[in-house]
């Protein structure tokens, strides 16, 4: 078990700055997801922690030891790759045993630990098969078993579920969470899939443009995004941003007013589609419905607020039609105010 301290890590590829001084602390036994769109630097950061890539500047400290310049094999970690990287020329047993063999473990110990990891991932019945005979999901289990067999202090996972089909991904996600909770390993998990990050992680670090925009629990990130990017990236549908002008502590949208934090400033009202409730036309914020999409569990309404595009989630039985105007009531405590110029959330008064 170990904690991880990432201290102002910078990575440059030629003139391109992939990581712009990233700092992050992962506590012992914690599960942190690095979440962001492609090209945000999350995989680069993971590879630097693993030692597969060298940082331009900054430090990586694992369990109190500065590993910045150590080879990957000396960092005491294990990794699960996006395409599994299960060795095709070895049986499942030898794949899971690989790390233990490299540690020159005794045959009995190898057997015991391989069997335990295999039992954890339910792959005992095909230990003597070759990976080519396994499905994608089974190979993924082998890759995770190989990582857990060495009982690593730190486990790194690089989009481990992205090559699986949707149903299997859901199943593996649940199982992974159970297995990793049992193992209690400090885990860093890279993904571009917000539902994976929300479902699995204790804390999520949302990355964008080589920086961490926000780090916090899934609920914090969802409810109080620190930037416009985080609000737009997390949640489905994404957060709506409505440009308003705030004067004397009040923002006026159509006929409605909402208390706003700073006066005399251009700002954006960040409103989650599920935080607005429908009201008769004439009360609340006016919303012009353009398209109604019944999603089963809810209705997805696409339209505009004050001429600006917005998406609202309504109960499945709501009686609304395209072309209609309805009112929206909003709890002022559940909205986010974004500074139009910096794109950052304005602290609540």
């Amino acid at each position, binding site marked *: 078990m170990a904690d991880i301290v990432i201290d102002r890590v910078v990575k440059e590829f030629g003139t391109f700055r992939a990581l712009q001084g990233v700092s992050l602390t992962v506590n012992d036994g914690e599960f942190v997801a690095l979440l962001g769109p492609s090209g945000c630097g999350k995989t680069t950061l993971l590879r630097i922690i693993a030692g597969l890539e060298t940082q331009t500047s900054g430090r990586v400290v694992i369990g109190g030891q500065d590993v910045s310049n150590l080879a990957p*094999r000396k960092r005491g970690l294990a990794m699960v790759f996006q395409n599994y990287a299960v*060795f095709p020329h070895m049986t499942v047993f030898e794949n899971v045993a690989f790390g233990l063999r490299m540690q020159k473990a005794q045959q009995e110990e190898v057997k015991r630990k391989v069997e335990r990891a295999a039992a954890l991932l339910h792959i005992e019945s095909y230990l003597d098969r070759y990976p*080519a005979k396994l499905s994608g999901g089974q190979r993924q289990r082998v890759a995770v078993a190989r990582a857990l067999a060495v009982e690593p202090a730190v486990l790194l996972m690089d989009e481990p579920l992205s090559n699986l089909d949707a149903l299997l991904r859901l199943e593996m996600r649940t199982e992974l969470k159970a297995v990793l909770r049992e193992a209690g390993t400090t885990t860093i998990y890279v993904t571009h899939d917000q539902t994976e990050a929300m479902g699995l992680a204790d804390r999520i670090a949302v990355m964008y443009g080589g920086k961490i925009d926000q780090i916090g629990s899934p609920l914090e990130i969802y409810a109080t995004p620190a930037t416009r990017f985080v609000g737009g990236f997390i949640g489905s549908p994404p957060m709506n941003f409505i440009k308003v002008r705030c004067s004397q502590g009040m923002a006026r949208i159509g006929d409605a007013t909402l208390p706003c934090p700073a006066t005399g400033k251009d700002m954006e009202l960040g409103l989650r589609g599920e935080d607005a409730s429908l009201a008769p036309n004439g009360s609340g914020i006016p919303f012009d419905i353009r398209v109604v999409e019944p999603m089963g569990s809810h209705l997805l309404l696409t339209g505009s607020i004050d001429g600006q595009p917005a998406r609202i989630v309504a109960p499945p039985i709501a009686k609304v039609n395209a072309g209609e105007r309805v009112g929206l009531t909003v709890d002022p405590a559940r909205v986010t105010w974004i500074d139009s110029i910096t794109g950052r959330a304005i602290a609540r008064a």
Partner: protein
Amino acid sequence: MPARTSWIPYALIAPSVIFLGALFLVPLVQTIWLSFSAGDGFSLENYQRMAGDLNFSLAVRNTFLLTLVVVPLQVVLALAMATMVTKLDRGRDLALWVLTIPLGISDLAAGLAWLALLQNTGYLNSALYALGLIQGPVGWLSQETPWALFFAIVLAELWRATAIVLVILIAGLQLIPKEFSEAAEIFGAKPWTRFMRITLPLLKPSLQSALILRTVLAFEVFAVVYALGGRNFPVLAGEAYVWQNDNQNYGVAAAYAVLIMAISLAATAVYLRVLRTRPEQLP
């Protein structure tokens, strides 16, 4: 697909079948027939004459010796070169291009180039003389210095034909996803272990192709040997040439040719068996 178009695939492969038949199968059958005929009808006379010749056992021994020394050295060199070239970030294409220049040179020209270096009045002796290491011309390629001659031929063959192995192995290395090596590194494998336990086993199909190609060609070695040593270093293909052109005995020449083919086929069969990749072990 409609049944009447079923002749199309046959029509499409017909030109290559006819080409191979006319220029490969017919001469092959003719050569085998020629090697087994003397006077009238089937006979082993040509083979008896071949085996009874003074140079025969020498040619067999030399050919095998050369193959057993040259081919493994070429594979090791090519593996080292391929590993280094694939690690280059910049100038990789240039390095590969320079390393493969010998491929564009005919084997006779390569032999003559090395002759110019190594003969009595060649560049090597001139250099050694200028350095004061020798007093006069030293013969490296004569019958009296068989090991020097052998060494010179090995050197020339390594220079000439290692690149083809290199090209095949680089192509093979590029097919191996880098995650395999990275995973091994994460799980504690040092560079040499990674090479032996991951890269080499995954390179097996390419190694097999390279070994078959190089071994078959090594059993046919002729021009370089002929340019450097003439008949001072008899090899099987050289003997076939001598019986064909100097002795005008086509039957014995054909027997040599069939022998070379039999050895090549046997070597190929061995490689196919020993280095086979079981289908379930394919990536």
